[in-house]
């Protein structure tokens, strides 16, 4: 990265704002944003899979409990969840003397916790909707073959439901990328945080924020393109002949 920045330095010679140092900061923010979003999405996905099956189960208390969880996390702003995770953990009496303090002091972990629980709630509802929309005949056919619930889920319901959930999940990924912009309020230097610093230093809102907007745009289009490709491969059986 350093070499790349050195090599483009001559072109930036006349530019007061976008110096190699500024670009290096943007690059750091880019890496932080992508890491934060990717890790929370993966953890959220792992959490959402069993939760969506539980939400679809006939066990009423289980289904209800999971619904309450998704209702709370989908009905409140992520910013409030982030504040609760960040300040809530840090201000527990005595925690600053305990062994987990180094983990919590780093704002990355409370942010990951809030983001993970938030995306898991949305993803659970997306998967649950897809599971519920599975044609009854497919489930009955699996039953008629003597499959247990577990096997029917593994072989019949999930493979088709998760494929059908793909477009909605793609939207959730982009939503998460955009929502991650609030990470800067708990002092994480993500893309938006860097843009704010550049704005504050040079008092140049247009350059700082339009540049970062373009970065997000590129990321959004890349994610959109990736999901389009994935859908093309995975949903081939649903295409009109």
């Amino acid at each position, binding site marked *: 990265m350093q070499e790349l920045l050195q090599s483009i330095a001559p072109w930036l010679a006349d530019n007061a704002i976008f110096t190699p140092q500024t670009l290096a900061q943007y690059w750091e923010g880019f890496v932080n944003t992508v890491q934060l979003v990717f890790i929370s999405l993966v953890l959220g996905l792992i959490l959402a899979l069993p939760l969506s099956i539980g939400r679809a189960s006939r066990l009423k208390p289980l289904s209800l409990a999971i619904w309450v969880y998704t209702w709370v996390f989908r*009905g*409140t702003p992520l910013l*409030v969840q982030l*504040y609760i995770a960040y*300040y*809530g953990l840090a*201000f527990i009496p005595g925690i600053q003397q305990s062994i987990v303090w180094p983990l919590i002091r780093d704002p990355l972990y409370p942010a990951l916790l809030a983001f993970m629980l938030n995306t898991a709630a949305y993803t659970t509802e997306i998967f649950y909707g897809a599971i519920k929309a599975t044609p009854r005949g497919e489930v009955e056919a699996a039953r008629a073959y003597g499959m247990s619930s577990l096997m029917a889920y593994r072989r019949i319901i999930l493979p088709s439901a998760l494929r059908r959930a793909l477009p909605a999940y793609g939207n959730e990924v982009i939503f998460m990328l955009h929502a*991650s912009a609030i990470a800067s309020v708990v002092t994480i230097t993500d893309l938006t945080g860097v843009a704010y610093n550049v704005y504050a230093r040079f008092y140049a*809102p247009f350059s700082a924020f339009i540049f970062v907007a373009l970065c997000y745009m590129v990321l959004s289009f890349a994610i959109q393109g990736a999901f389009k490709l994935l859908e093309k491969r995975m949903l081939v059986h649903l295409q009109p002949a």
Partner: protein
Amino acid sequence: MIDFMGYGPRLLEGALLTAQLAVLSLLLALVLGLATASARLSQNPPLRAIAVVYTVAIRSVPDLVLMMLLFYGAQIGLNQITDAIYNHWGYDIFITIDPFAAGVATIGLIFGAYMAETFRGAFLAVDRGQIEAGAAYGMSRWLVFRHIRFPLMMRHALPGLGNNWMVLLKTTALVSIIGLSDMVRIAAEATRATHQTFLFMIPVALGYLVMTSVSEVIFGWLSRRYNAGFEEQH
């Protein structure tokens, strides 16, 4: 009664500001959305291009970044314009942008793009025959819009509108970052001062839950109204 350590009245004021901000931005977003959807479906290529650029650009950038750009940028941009006017014509104008108005304008502008997509889909779902029937009765384009296209379109648009409204309501929390005293900002200040995170953040979360749940009931009622005459679909 819970003791809010003197922050109670300010929290209530913050909640009121959140509600006002959300409702006013919604109105602006609806107007912008309808106008943009009409532009996208019009026969005029430059108008269509502007609408496409607006919806695509806004929807691929985080709300917070747009908010910062417009919020911090608008005042500087405006100052540059008024400076230019002063240099050219000698009129000395000074305009300070009101943060609340800026918040409404920004959120309205962002969600206008989302509303436009919802309205566009809904307008396309209206049966052409209905519009032709209106024209055959000698209705003007405005009458056709008011009596046929709009009510029929709303049936398809309502689920999307409800969804956009919920997202908008939660997005208003972001104005606390750029300095408006909505309930999230008050709660964050109180938390930093007293270290009582849950005492302040849980009531704020409940406030949002009440607002989203009430909205859901209202949208359910509206949807039954606009679905009158159609069979219940599951």
